[in-house]
Structures are given as C-alpha cells and as structure tokens.
C-alpha cells in the first residue's frame, strides 16, 4: 500500500515539476524569441510577463476538448499521454544537484536514452488516429525522424560513458574532469543536434511544420490534450538540457548544495537558450536533408568520437 501512495506522491510531484518546467520553458522561449526578433515578448502578466504561460495553461484547461468525428476516438484520447509519460519518466534519472538524482541508478544514461524514445509510438498514434491528412503525414514524418536520430544520439553519449567508465549520470558528474569537454566536443555537438531532432524542435520540426502541415500530428488536438503535447515538448527540452549539462558540461562540477544546483541550472538554461535561438533562426530541414544529416554526417561524427576516446583511454 505504501508503495502505491509513495508512487502517487512521487508521480504527482514529478508532474508538478514537469508542469513548472513547461511553464518556465514557454515563457523563456517567448522572451528569448522576442529579444532575437527585436520584440519584447509577453509583458503584461507578472514581472516581464512571467505568468503569461500560466494564463495560457488555465485557458487551455478550460477550453473545449474536441474529439473529431473522423478520429479513432480511444486512440486519439490516449495518444497525448503516450507521448507525455515517457518524457516525464526520463526526468527521473536527471541529476538535478550534486550527487542526487530522483532515481540514482547505475544504468541512468541508458534509461534516459531508451525511455523517451517510446514517445514515438504516441506521436505515430496521434497522427494516425486523428484521421486528418496533415496529422497522418506529421505522424509518419515524426516516426521516421525520431527513429533515425536515435542512433547518433546513443553513439554520442557512448564517448562519455567510456571516459567515465559508468552509465550513472550522477557518477559521471562526480568523475568529470575539465579536459573531457574538448575531447568529447564532437560527441557533444552530435548529441545536441540529434537531441533537438528527437524533440521535434525547429529546425527539425518537420513533423509539426507549421508552414506546411499547419500543426502536424497534433493538428486536431485542442484544449488540455494539446497542452499535454506542449508540456511534453518543453519537458523534453528541460530534460535534454539538464542531461547534456550533466554529462557533457560537467553538471555541478562537484560543488554541493545550492550553488551546485544553481550551476547545473545555469548550464541547462544555456542549452535551452541555444535550442530556442537555433530554432527561431534556422530554416526547417526537408525530410531528405534531415536523413542525410543523420546518416551521412552525425553518425560518422559520433563514430569518430568513439575512436578518439578509444585512442585516448590507454594513455590515461
């Protein structure tokens, strides 16, 4: 019984964290994008419009939840949760502070790489069950994209795993040394690009492609179900940025306490900002360019990275 209660408490607090992360992410994105575009972004609610995303969320909660007549109703309703749950689960192994992650497991990196990938099923189901041509195309594009970027992403993380000799993110952070950064730079770039692609963020937002497919696989979702898609997107950004900051940038660098939490937070914010910056500046890839990048550029780069690390390891 206590197990269930604990799970419930844990799940709810996890949900709160991801909701907060999404609220912050949305606000930050709109502010950063606004500044890039010589605008202000939201200003009205709260200081610098910080509660704008809250108003958006309340509004979306109170909106009508439409299930289109042509949709496969059961699948249509369940798809947002199939996307959201794996992404929320992946937050569990992220080290938010020095030496602490909600779930400190020895296979944390593997967990992080494997679990969010399940959300591709949700995207595919969302696209197909909508019964809408845009959504169907978006779902197919999303599946193709996410599967092809799994490989370079996993390979890129391998380099750090070899250097650290562990798969636990907390341990990696503890063992991190400054010269890992130049050595694993190639892998970091591959990780970053393929993570952006995994998250379907611009310039890899071809499943959503608002100028081609209107909104892609979630074109027919409204209200709270659409908000869940958005939350999983921003939750994914936060998770990726924290993971990248912990693994490739050294995370809290052995500094404990509030300072360490702040340090990893700042590094993650840096990565989030770069994701937003790139997303609003670059044109979108076309599907063939996307696959070319994955197979002809990123995968070889990740392999070269592994070779580099493999050459260095015996000299240590």
């Amino acid at each position, binding site marked *: 019984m206590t197990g269930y209660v604990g799970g419930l408490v844990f799940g709810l607090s996890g949900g709160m964290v991801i909701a907060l992360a999404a609220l912050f992410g949305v606000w930050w994105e709109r502010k950063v*994008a606004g500044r*890039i*575009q*010589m*605008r202000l972004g939201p200003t009205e609610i709260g200081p610098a419009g910080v509660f704008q995303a809250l108003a958006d969320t309340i509004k979306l909660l109170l909106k009508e939840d439409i299930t289109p007549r042509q949709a496969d109703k059961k699948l249509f309703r369940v798809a947002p949760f199939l996307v959201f749950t794996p992404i929320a689960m992946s937050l569990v192994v992220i080290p938010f502070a020095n030496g602490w992650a909600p779930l400190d497991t020895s296979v944390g990196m593997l967990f992080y790489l494997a679990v969010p990938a399940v959300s591709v099923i949700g995207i595919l189901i969302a696209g197909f069950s909508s019964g809408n*041509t*845009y959504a*169907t*195309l978006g779902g197919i*594009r999303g599946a193709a994209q996410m599967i092809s970027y799994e490989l370079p992403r996993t390979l890129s993380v391998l380099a750090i795993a070899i250097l650290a000799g562990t798969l636990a993110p907390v341990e990696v952070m503890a063992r991190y040394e400054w010269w890992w950064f130049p050595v694993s730079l190639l892998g970091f770039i591959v990780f970053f690009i393929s993570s952006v692609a995994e998250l379907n963020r*611009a*310039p890899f*937002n*071809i499943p959503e*492609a*608002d*100028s*081609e*497919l*209107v909104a892609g696989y979630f074109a027919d979702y409204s209200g709270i179900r659409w908000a869940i898609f958005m939350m999983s997107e921003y939750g994914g950004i936060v998770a990726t940025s924290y993971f990248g900051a912990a693994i490739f940038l050294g995370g809290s660098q052995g500094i404990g306490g509030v300072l360490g939490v702040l340090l990893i937070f700042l590094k993650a914010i840096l990565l989030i900002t770069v994701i937003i910056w790139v997303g*609003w*500046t*670059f*044109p*979108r*890839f*076309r*599907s*063939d*360019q996307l696959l070319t990048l994955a197979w002809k550029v990123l995968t070889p780069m990740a392999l070269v990275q592994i070779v580099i690390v493999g050459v260095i390891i015996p000299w240590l």
Partner: protein
Amino acid sequence: MNASSIDRITSDAGEVDAVTLKITERTKKIATDGTPVDELVVNVGPSHPSTHGVCRVITHVDGEIVTKAEPVIGYLHRGVEKIAENRTYLQVVPLTDRLDYVGSMYTNWAYSRSVERLAGIRVPERAEYLRVITCEMQRMASHMMSLGSTSGDSGATTAFIYSFDIRERVIEFFEDLCGSRLTYNYVRPGGVSMEVPDGWFDDILAWLPIARQSLSELDRLFFGNHIARGRLKGIGVLSAEDAVSWGASGPVARGSGVNWDLRKHDTYSVYPRFDFDVPIGSNGDAYDRARCRLFEVYESMRIIEQAIEQIEPGPIKADGIPRLIAPRPGDAYDHIESARGSLGVYLVSDGSPRPYRMKVRSPAFCNLALLPMLAEGHTLSDLVIVLGSLDPVFGEVDR
C-alpha cells in the same frame, strides 16, 4: 551594385550541390490484390499559413512526393472589373489599390497610365519622378515581403521579421507621404495626389545606407544559411523557354534567365535617365528567383538615389484635368514593371465618364499558372517554397 553582382548569383548557384528530388519516372505502386495504391490527397488551403492569402492547392502526394498539384483560385474574386464599369475614371483608383495589396502603388500607376493614354494627358516631370521614387520604394517593400515569406515558409521566422522591419520603414515613409500605410491612392491619372512633406527626401537618403546594411544582414542570415540554400536550390526549376511560353514575367522569368524588364527593355516614364542593372538568374530555381528579388532591392535603392538627385521643383498634377474624365471611344493598354512582373491595365472607353471595360493583366495570375508544372515531383515541403517563390498576391490573381 554592378555587373559583378549579377555574376554573383550565377557563381553562387554552383556552390552547393543542388539537391533535386525531381523524379522522372515513377513506378506505380500496386497493392497485393493488384489494384493501384491510392495517393493521399492533401488539401492545402484556402486558409493555410503559407498559401500567401487564399489559394487552395489540391495536392496528390505519394508518400512525401507531390504527384499532382492543382491550384484552385478565385477565393478573393471581388469582381473589381465589374465594379469599375460603374465608377468614374477617378473613382476606380481606390479599387486598384486593393488589387495588389502588397504593392498598391503599381496598380495605381498602371491604371493611371492607361487612363492618361486614353485621355491624352501629359504628366508633369516632377510627378513622373515622384511616381518612380514611390514605386521603387514599393518594390523594396514588396520584395521584402516576398523574401520574408520565403524564409517564413521555410521555417526561419526571424529572417521574416528582419525583412519585415525594412518593409515597415518603407511603409512609414509612405505614411508620411500620403497618410496611409497600405492603400495609398497616391498615383492618380494626371499626376500624383500630394506634394512630398519637407525633409522627406533627406530622410530617405539618410535611411538608404541603413537599409543596405540591414539587407546585407538579412542576406547573411537567410541566404548564408546552409539549410536555406539546400531548401531553395534546385526546387521548382523553370526553363527560359517555359517562362516565355507561359507568359511569366518579373523575377520569376528573370530568375530563369529571361532578360526582360519593362523598365529597361520597353521603357516608360523617366526610367531611361537612370543607371541600373537587371539581375538575371541562371538556374531558374526558387533560389535564383529569391536572389533576383534581393538584388532588385539594391537596384531600386540606386534608382531612388538617382531620382532624388535629379528631381526638380514643378507641378505635380497635369493642368486642366476635369473631375469627370470622358475620353474618346477606343481602347488602350499600358503596362509597368511591378514587383511581380509586367502589370498592365486594358481600358475600353465608350465616350462616357465611366470605363466601358477594365481588365487588369495581372502578372501573379500568369506566374501562378506555373505552379502545377513546378511543384510536381518535389516534396510537400517544397510545394510551399515553390508557391512562395512565385510570389502570388491573391488580390491581384483573383481581382
């Protein structure tokens, strides 16, 4: 900008390998029971973020590849040509504003030229200069919109906003000039409606260097991007022969290497007095069309500078134009080079103060007819790029 700038388009085009997805032969997919697999029909429009207005494209796709794209137009058909038959010659001018709403000055001018030809009105020189200055600024504004929406369609929102910033400044100048941001009603039969405000020319001359700088920034931001070049190159290739036989004009024809600019080759107004070049593309793809537009903006700036230098005080309206212009019976056609190509107005008079028939030869209408040919065989993502590169304005296409 001189001849080398035109070369730059040509040399630049070979820099990145053009990714061409044009399929020449397509194997018909057959289902297991022997029937051909149906293609997916995607209905793009009439309200779609990148149809630039209200165009509907019924697109048949095989996977991602467009096998057939059929544009359906007329969603903005307002019957301007019929309305004009019940208005006097001067009352038609505001209607022409609403045709090409991205570049209202052009339709004003083309219509005014037609009326002037029909009624035998001679326009004072200062008015001609003012027309050239405003229309070249309008060309800048219109091309910035086109370039911006090309980048917006390909997903680069920031580039859109940067280019719109330049456009916004031009519109501010127009607001100072005639009080309106979009529908100017400025060029009228017999001249222009208003004298320029004090210091207007100086403001423009002071702004042009800034605009050049912003333009080169935009150039680097969007065209300097590897993804953008990959998205635009080799997409929607139009051969020069097709451009001529399909009646394409403006940057669409010039991007294909058709050296045809009415300002230069069938010259009108005071254009022969200016020194400017006509940018010509070589590959005829979306990239060359967009580059042509970009370089035309530079050329427009040159023309504006020269025109402001040459302009002299004088009357801005022809003398003795009656309120009711009633030309002698007959028909006249006159055309100008708008941002989208040769824009002509055909007027038939029966001697009464109202036009008996007005027909607008809209360049965007002719250019848009190319869409099925250009989009076929490309991916769905390229369809919006091709459509954007034809730069249709539906007020003008549908009239």
